[in-house]
């Protein structure tokens, strides 16, 4: 009983001194933290931060939007006219769609990288930019589509006209067939 009393006292003091020795040692070790805005940690190459879309390569296939678990990518496309040449992507795929809308709501994005893997042209990828706070939430919706609104309208109109023309042609064809059949 008595010995445990003194043992407690001794342990109390001794372990305190052991701890103090450790913290004193650390007082003189250099710090591991850095002065963030002035000094930055180099990022590894695979780092997953802000999404970026290289629209030159985008074919508008919508695969990234379908892979996204939080639906932060919105894509709208319009078929091009047969006369128009949209060029090819860097890995040789022929583009056939006008991308009229390619919005990424980066505020919703969960940085899971699931959109990057299915992309056939590797045009959507994650960059190493991580400082992009904004004052308005609407500023966090990134619009990647390269077409201006007027152009987009025009393409839509073009496509609708093409559809109408095709329908008219079809109707005309059907009518012609009907006409051709009628005499018989």
């Amino acid at each position, binding site marked *: 009983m008595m010995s445990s009393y003194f043992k407690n006292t001794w342990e109390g003091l001794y372990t305190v001194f052991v*701890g103090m020795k450790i913290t004193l040692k650390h007082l003189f070790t250099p710090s591991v933290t850095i002065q963030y805005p002035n000094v930055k940690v180099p990022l590894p190459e*695979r*780092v997953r931060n802000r999404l970026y879309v290289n629209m030159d390569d985008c074919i508008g296939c919508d695969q990234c939007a379908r892979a996204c*678990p939080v639906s932060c990518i919105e894509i709208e496309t319009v078929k091009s006219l047969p006369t128009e040449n949209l060029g090819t992507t860097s890995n040789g795929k022929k583009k056939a769609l006008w991308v009229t809308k390619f919005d990424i709501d980066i505020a919703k994005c*969960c940085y899971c*990288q*699931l959109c990057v893997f299915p992309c056939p042209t590797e045009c959507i990828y994650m960059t190493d930019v991580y400082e992009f706070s904004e004052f308005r939430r609407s500023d966090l919706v990134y619009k990647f589509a390269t077409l201006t609104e007027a152009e987009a309208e025009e393409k839509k109109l073009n496509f609708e006209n093409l559809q109408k023309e095709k329908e008219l042609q079809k109707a005309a064809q059907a009518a012609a067939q009907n006409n051709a059949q009628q005499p018989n």
Partner: protein
Amino acid sequence: MSIKTEHMVLNMGPQHPSTHGVLRLELELNGELIVNVKPHIGYLHRCFEKHAEAMTYPQIIPYTDRIDYLASISNNFGYAVTVEKLMGIQVPERVEYIRVIFGELQRIASHLVAIGTYGLDIGAFTPFLYCFRDREKILSLFEMTCGARLLYNYIWVGGLSHDIHPEFVRLTREFLNYFRPQVEEVNQLLSYNKIFIERTANIGILPAETAINFGMTGPNLRGSGVKFDLRRNDPYSIYDRFDFDIPVGDGRMGTVGDCWDRYFVRVLEIEQSIRIIEQALDQIPEGDVSSAIPKRIKPPVGSVYGRVENPRGELGYFLISDGGLNPFRLKVRGPSFVSLSVMGELCKGHLIADVIAILGSIDIVLGEVDR
């Protein structure tokens, strides 16, 4: 004649420095003595199970990251194991080894948080930062491999999102060599400190039988002296190939199953995880990590319960598939959810300060309690 007294009701949380998130504990007090504790949860409910019913199988993985955000890899691991079990996928050897290495690194990282914040709960601030310093090094290893520091989306059904970085094996060995002595330092500073022992030994004693009845798993169960570890008793992946010990609480400082035992089991587990990682690094074969990833994940009709040893205990996924692209039902059995239910039992008759010590010792993550 006795004086009529009333019990005081004290709301601890949802905003409180040491409820580890948004937990509300309703304490009924007699002076500073606890008469009753009632946990109120759900402040962080994110409808994981409802979400899962509307997601395809790969899309669920980022959501599993967020169940227990201190052990994302382990959550990915458990989910992948469950779906693979239902689909009957055999994953390549290299994938298994990488999974084990990452799972164990994640266990170390998670235990470092547990140890550090436990020190913080008891009032020692410095060990917390030492632990976080080392945890950051582990997170850097993860970042190098898959690009994210916290929510990895790394382990996929049938494979991995990336192969490990060419430098990974060397850097991991370097880290382990650096890290071994650090554990001892934390022990000297915190675990064997007389004040810390006084605060935690003989507090919140959880006998083995009660622990099993309450469904406690992982370090909490082992702290009560039950030698039960899913990696050994119900092996998944390739854990049966490694040589490691299962540390159990032995009541060294007080009674078996007290807070100190639960805490110290975690410290000892770090050592065992280091051993597993070292063995795995030696044996890791070459190969492709994405060859077994199915193009379309469409499990057959059926149900499966898969469980893995998460740092906090048994993480179970109960998956019912109707043969479609989305799960019919995905129920998560979070170890923290189960562990927290024992709070009321443990706290009775202790002081307010002990509530903090007990809550810290069962090491909950509110993200997983509420899902």
